[in-house]
């Protein structure tokens, strides 16, 4: 029973024990050469890196070696003793003085933990370098001459010319005797002939040549020692190889057929005897396989060396293909790569791959996709907007399964935020199809054209669907404007007119149909204007009406098909004016209303004129304010209201347009700090929001109107352009 129990215990221990590997407690790795000769009048520095591999913080010290002293000054240099926490390292800096060491040192340095609170090494816990890395020091007589070679590597060509290695005797006093290379035991010994006859005696400070002659055999780099009978040794190496133009590289590990998402490598071997290979990479990789060539590109691969090109597969298949592999100075080789999984299928657009939508929350458009893969494509092809400006601002439908040749129409629905640049996005089914690139632009559902009388600029700003704020403003400069004031858009939404108060003219611009930018601006040939301010285009689009503040008239300018006023302008016939400012027409073209800036302190009035054959007749004062200096004026077709704003007191006046003429129920509302020095007034078609421009500051007023067109709330909106006077809305109502 005992024997069985012990046997069972023994078996249970076996795998536990066999899994454990030996590891030095303290790694001791040389940072300098550790094998050398030291003359007895010479001091040579040696450094080792010490790493505490254990899980215990230890106070460590070096087991003393006579003739070797520890240097403790410097960055990251080990103290004496030194404390290393787990994983920590320091540099053990030693100084070997040839005059004090034993005739040879063939081990160490040993690093031990210290006995508690002492610097005495504790033999119970010590590590040392590997035998190869241990100190191997021979003390030599200082009078032995040092030898120097003019090069370390001598490159010979098979059956080529002899080459010399020049050896110099470094001693100032001693003649070096019988200096020659020891090629015995190497391939050089049998295949390279040495002529050392010139080096039998090398006087102090003099040189001689060892002459090497190769035979036909190719030999890789082989090191050998050179010494005389009374000298120290110097090392050199010879390689015998054909001249190479480029490093010959070979690849192993191909074909490499990856599993989905797997990463694996091929090994590149530099078979060159002479040349390093740099910047080795696989070229023309297909979609689905990515490469990490850093192992082959970070450093040149030396002759005989190797590196690994690492390839990572995505989740879909890639048929086996041949990729060329080469570096900037290498031969050409190739590897077969592939991914063992179903491949990506092809899809294609049928028809247009770009769309323009409007940010009104309902605008839709479509693109049609065809399955051209030759195989069944499962459901799931859709547009992916992640990472693009379209993300969150447009939605797309998803295709169902498609047989080969089937088409699918993806429906795009815009939100309420505009994206006013052509924005690309991919269409694909994850891990199943090659992606297509579509383009969508979302124009705002409305834009406002604004004028700045100070800078002579005009702006186009998007009216965002959700907030009705004025955003994404474009500036149009150098249009030849001069103190622009009133702005109007014709009923066809094709032209914008801008009144130049400074030079009694009108500029008209085309509205670019896609971007709604102002283009092809020119003078409209208005005449007879006198400090004009306001402008309106009548609902039929045939005439422009411009208020002249200096002579209390309204000019009527017939509009030609090209938008200009070819026949000049005439007096519209309007009367009952007092420094008329803004003007607007009822939607049915029955009446025009003109805001008047008071000529005295008694307050301004609103003039109503009947429209008769494009003339303004029967003008009268429809509303007389007590203090208002009315500036902007707008009429809401949606709720039959007239809105005007006071220049001095920021009063916002709402009047009901009485059918058959007249204003009633005019109610003033102080906008307080939301605007100042009111300019133009605009109201949207739905009668839900109005704007009052501020000609003296960088903010204006946005006024929300209730279902009856009455002021519900108002707020300050900041616009990037400032000092605005004119405003005209261009709305797209689907």
């Amino acid at each position, binding site marked *: 029973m*005992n*024997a069985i129990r*012990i*046997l069972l*215990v*023994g078996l249970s*221990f*076996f795998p*536990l*024990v066999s899994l*454990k*590997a*030996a*590891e*030095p*407690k303290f*790694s*001791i790795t040389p940072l300098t050469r550790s094998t050398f000769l030291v003359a007895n009048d010479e001091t040579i520095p040696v450094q080792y890196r010490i790493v505490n*591999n*254990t*899980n*215990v913080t230890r106070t460590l010290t070096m087991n003393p070696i006579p003739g070797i002293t520890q240097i403790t000054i410097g960055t990251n240099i080990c103290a004496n003793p030194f404390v290393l926490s787990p994983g920590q390292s320091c540099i053990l800096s030693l100084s070997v003085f040839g005059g004090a060491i034993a005739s040879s040192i063939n081990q160490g340095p*040993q690093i*031990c*933990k210290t006995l*508690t609170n002492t610097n005495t090494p*504790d*033999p*119970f*816990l*010590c*590590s*040392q*370098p*590997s*035998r190869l890395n241990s100190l191997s020091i021979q003390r030599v007589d200082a009078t032995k001459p040092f030898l120097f070679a003019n090069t370390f590597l001598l490159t010979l060509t098979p059956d080529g010319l002899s080459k010399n290695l020049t050896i110099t005797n470094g001693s100032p006093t001693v003649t070096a005797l019988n200096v020659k290379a020891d090629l015995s035991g190497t391939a050089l010994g049998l295949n390279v002939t040495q002529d050392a006859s010139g080096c039998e005696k090398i006087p102090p400070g003099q040189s001689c040549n060892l002459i090497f002659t190769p035979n036909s055999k190719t030999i890789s780099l082989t090191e050998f020692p050179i010494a005389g009978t009374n000298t120290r040794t110097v090392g050199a190496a010879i390689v015998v190889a054909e001249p190479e133009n480029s490093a010959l590289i070979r690849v192993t590990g191909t074909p490499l057929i990856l599993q989905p998402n797997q990463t694996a490598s091929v090994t590149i071997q530099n078979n060159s005897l002479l040349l390093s290979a740099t910047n080795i990479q696989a070229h023309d990789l297909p979609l689905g396989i990515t490469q990490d060539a850093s192992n082959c590109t970070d450093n040149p691969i030396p002759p005989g060396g190797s590196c690994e090109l690492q390839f990572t597969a995505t989740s879909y298949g890639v048929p086996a293909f041949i990729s060329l592999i080469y570096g900037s100075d290498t031969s050409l080789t190739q590897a077969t790569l592939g991914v063992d999984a179903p491949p990506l299928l092809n899809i294609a657009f049928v028809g247009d791959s770009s769309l323009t939508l409007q940010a009104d929350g309902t605008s839709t458009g479509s693109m049609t996709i065809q399955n051209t893969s030759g195989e069944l494509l499962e459901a799931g092809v859709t547009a992916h907007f992640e990472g693009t400006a379209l993300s969150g601002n447009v939605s797309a439908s998803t295709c169902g399964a498609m047989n080969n040749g089937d088409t699918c129409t993806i429906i795009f629905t815009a939100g309420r935020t505009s994206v006013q640049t052509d924005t690309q996005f991919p269409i694909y089914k994850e891990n199943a199809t090659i992606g297509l690139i579509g383009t969508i632009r979302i124009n705002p559902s409305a834009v406002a054209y604004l004028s700045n009388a100070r800078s002579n600029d005009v702006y186009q700003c998007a009216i965002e669907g959700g907030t009705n704020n004025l955003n994404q403003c474009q500036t149009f400069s150098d249009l030849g404007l001069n103190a622009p004031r009133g702005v109007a858009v014709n009923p066809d939404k094709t032209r914008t007119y801008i009144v130049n108060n400074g030079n009694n003219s009108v500029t008209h611009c085309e509205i670019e149909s896609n971007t709604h930018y102002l283009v092809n601006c020119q003078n409209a040939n208005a005449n007879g204007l006198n400090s004009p301010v306001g402008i309106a285009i009548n609902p039929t689009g045939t005439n422009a009406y411009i208020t002249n503040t200096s002579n209390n008239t309204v000019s009527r300018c017939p509009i030609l098909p090209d938008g200009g006023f070819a026949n000049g302008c005439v007096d519209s016939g309007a009367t009952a004016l007092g420094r008329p400012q803004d003007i607007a027409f009822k939607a049915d073209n029955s009446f025009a209303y003109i805001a008047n800036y008071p000529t005295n302190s008694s307050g301004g009035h609103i003039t109503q004129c009947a429209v008769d054959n494009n003339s303004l007749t029967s003008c009268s004062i429809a509303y007389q304010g007590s203090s208002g200096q009315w500036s902007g004026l707008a009429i809401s077709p949606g709720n039959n209201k007239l809105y005007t704003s006071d220049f001095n007191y920021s009063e916002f006046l709402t009047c009901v347009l009485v059918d058959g003429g007249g204003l009633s129920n005019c109610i003033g509302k102080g906008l307080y700090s939301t605007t100042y020095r009111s300019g133009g007034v605009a109201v949207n078609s739905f009668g839900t929001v109005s704007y009052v421009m501020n000609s003296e500051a960088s903010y204006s007023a946005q006024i929300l109107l209730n279902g009856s067109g009455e002021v519900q709330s108002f707020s300050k909106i900041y616009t990037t352009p400032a000092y605005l006077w004119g405003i005209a809305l261009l709305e797209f109502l689907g």
Partner: protein
Amino acid sequence: MTPYILLKENQTVITKQKKWTSFYLLNLCLLSSSGFAAAQSTLTDKTTTYAKLNRPDRTVVFTLSVGPAWSDAQRTQTLLLQPDLKKTYASTNSSSTLIDGEIFAGIQKILHPKIDGQIGLAIAGASNSNLSGDVWEDGNPNFNNYVYKYNVNHGHIAIKGKLLSPFHERYQPYVSGSIGVGFNRSANFSLTPKIEEEVPAPLFQANTTTAFTYTVGMGVQTAINDRWKVSVGYEFADWGQSHLGAAPGQTIGKGPSLSHLYTNELQFSLSYFPRDI
């Protein structure tokens, strides 16, 4: 059922009528203490006729036993050698083959018509039992950096008893047992680094431990002639505890220890019966 033996020519019949109760009980105690249940019976005054196979009523006996033995000592132990230094000694190979020998001197007595008993003094010794394993520095198996080896040898002096059943003309089965004082010497500790980078620590010193020891055995004996008999059997022994001495510089405790070291021996014995008494 009454056992009997067929008589051969020149064999005589003796009458057995005495009690050897104390002798029998001592043997019984030895054997039962070793885990063997002795046949439960009571000696009574009755007269039974048996074959006499040179079965003197009382005789001196000397036995020399020798044979191969196999030891087992499996133990992993972590020792605190200094206040800030511990090492684990993980046994990996605890089984070894050794030679065991014993000299026994005693007397043999007829205890019962079916049972002869022997009691006497046994002096035994064994060659080295080899132990080896891994040393884990800091008790951490990631630093499994050395192989340790040492050996334990053993001697003991014990009171030994044996019960033989002479019911067969030619072969007599027996059971035996002993208890005594053992002397376990742990010595020749060595450390061999598994990698060049590791430096062996100071070695644990040899140490002799005095321990309680016992054996139990069973086998079969046959007679060469009236004076000489040979037997072959199995004997299990527990050498008891042993440990190595502390290493030079060790400030806490002692070396690796064993609380038991078991051997299983194939035992060949030669017994000599010089005279009856």
